[in-house]
C-alpha cells in the first residue's frame, strides 16, 4: 500500500475498492466482539476457516470477522449476506451445517434462528428481529460490514471520504460551523455542545493545540466505546483527524482504559494503516495538514475519565483533577488548548460531514440531536448495545428492543448515567430519553449505560453500591468527596445491616447537599445522585429497612433468613450436599433444616433446589 498524495488518489483508491466488491457474493460475518469471544467466537471462526478450506469454498464465500454486532445476549452471532439471515448462539459444531445447508443450498436452519420472546415465532432475517428492527444504527451499523483491522474494508464502505471532503473543499471554520449547526453534543456524560468546544479551542491562543479521544470508558455498565473502538476504529480516527483540522491541531492522543486490550490492539493497527496511506503524518492527502496520534493507556482509575485528571495522567502524573479556573479548551494538556471528546462523539463527526448537518439535526429531539448508543444490560431479556434516535422512550428501549424483563419478573427501575446518574422508576417509563429529560428525572444521560433492575434488586443496595464504588475511586484530593463518601457509605451500611436509625435519611440528604455544592470535580459533585434519585422514588424502601428492619427485595443479607418450606421439600439432600457451611441437615426423603447459626446466606441452596423449597424472607 502506497501513501496517498492527494484527494484524487484517494478517490481512485476508493473507486477501486468499491468496484472489487460483489454485493451478490455470499458473505459470513462472524461477530468477534468481546462478548461473543467470551461465548466462544474464536472456536466458531476457526471452524469456519477449517470447513471453508475443507469444502473448497474460499472462492465462493467470504468470511468476515467483525466487531460487536450489539446482540451480545445471543452470541455467537453470525450474519449471512446477501440475504441478511441471522443465526444466534452458534457453536463450532453448527458450522459445517451452516455451510452445507444455508450457503450451498439456501436452506434455513430453524434451531439457530432467533425466537421472539413474546410470540415464540422464529425470525429469519436480522432486520425483522425486534432487537434490530427498532434501532437506527448510524454509528454502529457499519460494525457488521467490515473487518476492523482492515482499512480497505473501511474505505470500501465510504470511510475517509468525509476527511477527503473536508481537506479538499472546507475551511476549518466551516467544519466547526457544520458541527455547531448539527447540534451534536458530547456523548461522554455532560452533553456539552461539541461545536462550541471546538470553537472555543480554535479561538484560544496557543502554538500547539491538542485533540484527544477519551476512551477511558469508566462508567460501570457501559461498553459502547469499547465496541466502537474494537469494531470500527477508523471511524473514530477519521473523526479525530477532522477535529484536528478544524481546530488546527498537529498532535492527538487517545486515552484507552487498560481493561480494553482488544480495543487498544485494533486502534494501534488502525493508526499504523492510516499512517501508511497518509491519513496521518506530514502533508495529509497533499493538503499541507500535519497531524499524528499517540496512545496513552489508563491505569484503572475511574476519575481519569474527568478531563483534567485524564490530561494529568497523559502527562505521566497521578490522575487527580484540578480546579477549573481555566477550561481545558484554553489550557489543557501541557497548558495548551485542548479538545477532549468521547469515542462516540468522534465517531459521529464523519457521519455529519458526509450526510450534512441538516440531515443530522432532523434526528432526535429539540435540543438533543442524532442517535445515542445505549448499553442495555441487567435484568432484561435481550441485553446488548442498542442505537436509537434521541427521544426514544425508555419503554420502547426496554420492552420493544430489550424484549422485557427476564423470567417474567416485574420491572422496578432502570439505572442510567453510571455513578453520576440515578434511577428512573416504572412511572416514568414513557419518558423520551434525551439529555434534558433524564436530568429532570434526577438521572442523567452519562455515557449510555442502561441497567435494568427488577423486583429482586434492592434500591438501598444499589445506592450503597455506587457510594462504595465512588468511595474507592475518589482520588482523595478534596475533603467533601473523600470524607463525605466514607460517611455516606457507613450510614448506608448501617441501614442495610439493620442498624439504621430515625434521622439517617435526613443526615444523608444534608451530606449530599454539601458534597454536591463543594466538591472539586464532577466525581464528587455528582456522587450523591444515585442516592438522591433512589431516595426520591423509593423512599418507602429505605424506610422499611430502617423502621421494620426488612429488605423487601431480599438482597441485604443481614435482613433476610433462609428457611425450608416443609410442604415443598422432598428430602433430595441436594441442598445439604451443596451447602458450603454444612448448615443444612436432614435424612434422605425427610424434611431438611437450615441451622441459622451456620448459614452465611450465600444462596447456593436456592440455586440448588429443584423444587423451590428454599424460602428467602
Amino acid at each position, binding site marked *: 500500500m502506497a501513501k496517498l498524495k492527494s484527494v484524487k488518489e484517494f478517490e481512485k483508491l476508493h473507486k477501486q475498492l468499491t468496484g472489487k466488491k460483489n454485493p451478490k457474493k455470499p458473505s459470513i460475518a462472524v461477530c468477534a466482539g468481546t462478548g461473543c469471544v467470551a461465548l466462544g467466537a474464536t472456536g466458531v471462526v476457526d471452524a469456519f476457516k477449517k470447513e471453508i478450506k475443507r469444502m473448497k469454498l474460499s472462492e465462493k464465500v467470504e468470511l468476515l470477522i467483525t466487531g460487536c454486532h450489539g446482540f451480545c445476549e445471543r452470541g455467537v452471532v453470525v450474519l449471512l449476506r446477501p440475504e441478511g439471515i441471522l443465526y444466534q448462539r452458534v457453536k463450532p459444531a453448527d458450522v459445517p451445517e451452516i455451510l452445507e445447508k444455508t450457503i450451498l443450498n439456501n436452506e434455513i436452519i430453524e434451531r439457530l434462528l432467533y425466537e421472539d420472546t413474546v410470540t415464540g415465532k422464529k425470525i429469519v432475517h436480522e432486520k425483522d428481529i425486534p432487537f434490530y428492527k427498532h434501532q437506527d444504527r448510524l454509528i454502529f451499523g457499519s460494525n457488521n460490514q467490515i473487518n476492523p483491522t482492515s482499512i480497505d474494508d473501511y474505505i470500501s464502505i465510504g470511510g475517509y471520504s468525509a476527511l477527503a471532503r473536508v481537506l479538499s473543499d472546507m475551511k476549518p471554520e466551516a467544519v466547526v460551523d457544520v458541527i455547531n449547526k448539527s447540534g451534536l453534543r458530547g456523548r461522554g456524560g455532560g452533553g456539552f455542545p461539541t461545536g462550541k468546544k471546538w470553537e472555543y479551542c480554535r479561538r484560544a491562543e496557543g502554538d500547539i493545540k491538542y485533540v484527544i479521544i477519551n476512551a477511558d*470508558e469508566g462508567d*460501570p455498565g457501559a461498553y459502547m466505546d469499547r465496541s466502537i473502538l474494537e469494531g470500527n476504529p477508523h471511524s473514530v480516527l477519521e473523526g479525530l483527524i477532522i477535529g484536528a483540522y478544524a481546530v488546527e491541531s498537529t498532535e492527538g492522543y487517545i486515552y484507552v482504559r*487498560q481493561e480494553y486490550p482488544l480495543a487498544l490492539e485494533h486502534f494501534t493497527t488502525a493508526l499504523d494503516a492510516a499512517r501508511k496511506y497518509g491519513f496521518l503524518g506530514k502533508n495529509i492527502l497533499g493538503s499541507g495538514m500535519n497531524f499524528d496520534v499517540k496512545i496513552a493507556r489508563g*491505569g*484503572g482509575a475511574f476519575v481519569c475519565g474527568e478531563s483534567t485528571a485524564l490530561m494529568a495522567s497523559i502527562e*505521566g502524573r497521578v490522575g487527580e483533577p484540578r480546579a477549573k479556573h481555566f477550561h481545558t479548551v484554553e489550557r489543557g494538556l501541557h497548558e495548551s488548548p485542548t479538545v477532549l471528546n468521547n469515542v462516540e462523539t468522534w465517531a459521529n463527526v464523519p457521519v455529519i460531514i458526509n450526510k450534512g448537518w441538516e440531515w443530522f439535526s432532523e434526528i432526535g429531539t429539540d435540543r438533543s440531536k442524532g442517535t445515542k448508543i445505549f448499553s442495555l444490560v441487567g435484568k432484561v431479556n435481550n441485553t446488548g448495545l442498542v442505537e436509537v434516535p434521541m427521544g426514544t422512550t425508555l419503554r420502547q428501549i426496554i420492552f420493544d428492543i430489550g424484549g422485557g424483563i427476564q423470567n417474567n419478573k416485574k420491572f422496578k427501575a432502570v439505572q442510567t448515567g453510571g455513578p453520576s446518574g440515578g434511577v428512573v422508576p416504572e412511572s416514568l417509563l414513557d419518558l423520551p430519553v434525551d439529555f434534558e429529560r433524564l436530568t429532570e428525572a434526577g438521572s442523567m444521560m452519562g455515557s449510555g449505560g442502561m441497567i435494568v433492575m427488577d423486583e429482586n*434488586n434492592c434500591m438501598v443496595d444499589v445506592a450503597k453500591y455506587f457510594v462504595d464504588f465512588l468511595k474507592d475511586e475518589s482520588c482523595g484530593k478534596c475533603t467533601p468527596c473523600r470524607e463525605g463518601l466514607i460517611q455516606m457509605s457507613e450510614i448506608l451500611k448501617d441501614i442495610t445491616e439493620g442498624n439504621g436509625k430515625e434521622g439517617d435519611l435526613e443526615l444523608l440528604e444534608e451530606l449530599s447537599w454539601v458534597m454536591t455544592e463543594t466538591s472539586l470535580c464532577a466525581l464528587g459533585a455528582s456522587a450523591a445522585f444515585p442516592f438522591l434519585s433512589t431516595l426520591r422514588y423509593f423512599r418507602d424502601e429505605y424506610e422499611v429497612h430502617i423502621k421494620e428492619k426488612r429488605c423487601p427485595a431480599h438482597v441485604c443479607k443481614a435482613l433476610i433468613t433462609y428457611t425450608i418450606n416443609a410442604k415443598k421439600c422432598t428430602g433430595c439432600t441436594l441442598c445439604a450436599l451443596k451447602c458450603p457451611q454444612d448448615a443444612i441437615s436432614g435424612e434422605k426423603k425427610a424434611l431438611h433444616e437450615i441451622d441459622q447459626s451456620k448459614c452465611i446466606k450465600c*444462596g*447456593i441452596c436456592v440455586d440448588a433446589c429443584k423444587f423451590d423449597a428454599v424460602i428467602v424472607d
Partner: protein
Amino acid sequence: MDKIGVFVCHCGSNIASTVDVRKVVEEIKKYPGVEHCENYVYMCSEPGQQLIKDKIKEKGLDAVIVAACSPTLHETTFRKACQSVGLNPYKFESANIREHCSWVHSDMKRATAKAVKIVETLVEKIKQNEELTPISIPVTRRALVVGGGIAGIQTSIDIANSGYEVILVEKDSSIGGHMIQLSETFPTLDCSQCILTPKMVEAGHHPNIKLYSYSEVEDVSGYIGNFKVKIKKKPRSVDFDKCTGCGDCMTNCPIHYEAQIPPVPKYSDGIDPDKVKELDKIMKKYTVGKEEVPDKEMLILIMQDINLQYNYLPDYALKYLSEKLDIPLTSIYHAATFYTAFSLTPRGDHLVKVCMGTACHARGASRILEEFERQLQIKHGETTPDKKFTLETVNCLGCCALAPVAVIDDDYFMMTPNKVGTLLKKYSKE
C-alpha cells in the same frame, strides 16, 4: 504473713458488663493469703474508700489491693485512703482489670478468668512489698541537655528562661543539627535558618546556658537530683577567648576542606546488572530520537510495561526509575498506589478478576466474588499462599451483556456461583 484485703470494683458497667465481678471475688477468696475480698460499684467514691478504711480496721488488714482501673487514675487516691488509717501506702497495689481487661475483651467468661489471673499476680506481688518511708535529699538545680539540634536548643532556652542553669553539649563544632541543613521546613515552607539562627544566637548568649560544642558526654553516674557527668571536650587547638569565628583558618588550611555530607548511594549500584538491563530495555522503548532517558511523561507507560512483565512493580524497579527519570520516589509511589492496575506485591500464576460493574452487581456479582473468596480462602486483593491465584475485583470489564463476568488471565467467563469450582480446578492444573 500479711493479711491481704482485695476490693473488686464494678466501675458502673465499665468492668461489670464484661467481667463477672462476683465470680472474681469468689475465686480470689480461695487464694492463699487473701484475708478478705468483696466488690463494690465505685471503689473510688467516698463510700467506697470508707469501705476499704473500715475493713482495714475491722479485719486488721496489712496489705490492700483494689482491682479497678489503671493505677495512673486512682493509685494515689487509694494510697491516701490506706495511709489515713495507718497503713503504709506502699502496702497498697492497683490491679488493672479495666483498661487491660474489660475494655479490650468481649467474651465474658474469658475476660473473667483473665481478671482473676491479674488479681492473683498482684496478690503475689504485694506479698513481697516492704513498708517504705520517703526521705528528703538536696537536689542540684542544674540541667544537662545532650545534643544541640532544634529540640536541644529550644529545651535549653526554655529551662534557662525558667531560671535554671543549663549545660548544653553538642558533638559537632556548631549547634543547629540537621534542621540547619534544610532549605525549607514543613508545613509553612519557611526557610529553616529564619527559624533557627535567632535561637542559636539566643542559646549562645544566654547567661544561664553554658555551651560545650565539639564535646561529648563520656560518663553519667549518680541518681535523680545528683548526677555526675563527665564531658569530653575534643581538641581544637584554638584559643576560645581570642577566636572571633572569622573562618580564615578554614579557607587557608592546606588540607582541602570537604563538605561533611556523605554521598547518597545510587540505587542502581545495588541492583543485579541483569535486572538493570531488563529495565533499560523497557525504558528504551520510550526514548525518542537522541534522548538518553525517556521523557518524564512516559512514567505511567513504563510502569505499565514493568507491571506487565513482572506481574507487579518490584521495589528496585521503582527506585531505579526514580533515579533514571529524575522523579522523586514519593511521586512514583504516589502513582503506583493510585492506579489500580499496579500491584506492589507479586501476583500469582493466574490472575482472577471479578467484574463488579453495575450490570454484574445487579445480576449477583457479589455472590461470585464471595464464592471465589471462599474457595480460594483469600480475600480480594490477595494471593493464595501457593502463589497459584491472585483474586482481584475490577470496576467494569465492558462485557456487561453477559453479566456476571469474570476474567481469568485473558479469558472471559459468564459466571454462576456453581462455575467457580470447575474453573479453579481447570486452572490449578495448568
